[in-house]
């Protein structure tokens, strides 16, 4: 599998996700600067976490206007899998590849900690390595992870089985304080209609190595590699 990681000014999890991808795929992804106007052939496009453009104006807003994003949109439209993590998710909503928007956390503060997630669907190349209903642990680290969409959009996400992850407690129950940022419907990650674009606030790459205290995230990358090899 050949992955590319898009690097924006201010991206800071580009190396982290590259390490996780290399562990899973046995070969490093290509790192592509945001000014590029054409992308090399790729089986997977990753928009990494970080603070592109400092999160100034709105998180992800300026990165969404980067030259490279035209090509990312085209590839996504052609069915190439895209994974947006944290700031990558914000960029995906800002450029319209995913619906909704990510607002300031309801607690207003930046939050960095492990959260529990319930896998809501295994029906995507990103989540195929998990069982639906399974509870996994990923870290979050964000200031603007409060997912908002109008009720029709949320219904469409639900009806289309496009909610990939929900915040939950260790027992897999949603609600009751498990939601770290106020996201509507406890949504942590969503798919596009075609199911090839996933955006999520939690960082699978940060718990993809037993040395760091867990490897639930590694399965996302392993699943992608298996599907796209």
């Amino acid at each position, binding site marked *: 599998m050949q992955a590319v990681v898009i690097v924006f000014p201010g991206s800071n999890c580009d190396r982290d996700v590259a390490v996780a991808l290399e562990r899973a795929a046995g070969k490093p992804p290509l790192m592509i600067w945001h000014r590029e106007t054409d992308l090399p052939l790729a089986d997977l496009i990753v928009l990494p976490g970080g603070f592109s453009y400092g999160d100034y104006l709105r998180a992800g807003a300026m990165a969404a206007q980067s030259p490279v994003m035209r090509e990312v949109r085209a590839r996504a439209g052609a069915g190439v899998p895209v994974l947006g993590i944290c700031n990558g998710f914000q960029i995906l*909503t800002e450029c319209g590849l995913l619906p909704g928007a990510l607002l300031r*956390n*309801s607690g207003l503060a930046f939050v960095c900690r492990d959260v529990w997630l319930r896998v809501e669907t295994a029906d995507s190349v990103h989540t195929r390595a998990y069982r639906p209903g399974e509870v996994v642990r990923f870290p979050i680290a964000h200031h603007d992870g409060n997912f908002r969409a109008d009720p029709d959009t949320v219904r469409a996400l639900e009806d289309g089985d496009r909610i990939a992850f929900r915040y939950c407690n260790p027992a897999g129950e949603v609600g009751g304080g498990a939601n770290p940022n106020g996201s509507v419907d406890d949504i942590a990650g969503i798919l596009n209609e075609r199911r090839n674009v996933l955006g999520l606030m939690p960082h699978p790459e940060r718990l993809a190595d037993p040395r760091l205290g867990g490897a639930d995230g590694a399965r996302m990358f392993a699943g992608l590699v298996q599907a796209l090899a």
Partner: protein
Amino acid sequence: MKARVEITLKQGVLDPQGKAIANALEQMGFAGVAGVRQGKVIEIELAETDARRAEESVRSMCERLLANRVIEDYTVELGI
């Protein structure tokens, strides 16, 4: 020419910052605060001197970058 863009959250979109400010004001003893909404003002200094062309350009900036039309509305005002 100067342009002033004001960006506000659409009616119905929950405003976490506005809500927090309202709570804080209440806690500080300000009575009768019925609601708070927070938005942005962006002032842009333009080389353009023609008001119509300036407005057009600023509207395009808003549509493409400054406002997120999923959740935000904007107004443009041209100044001196």
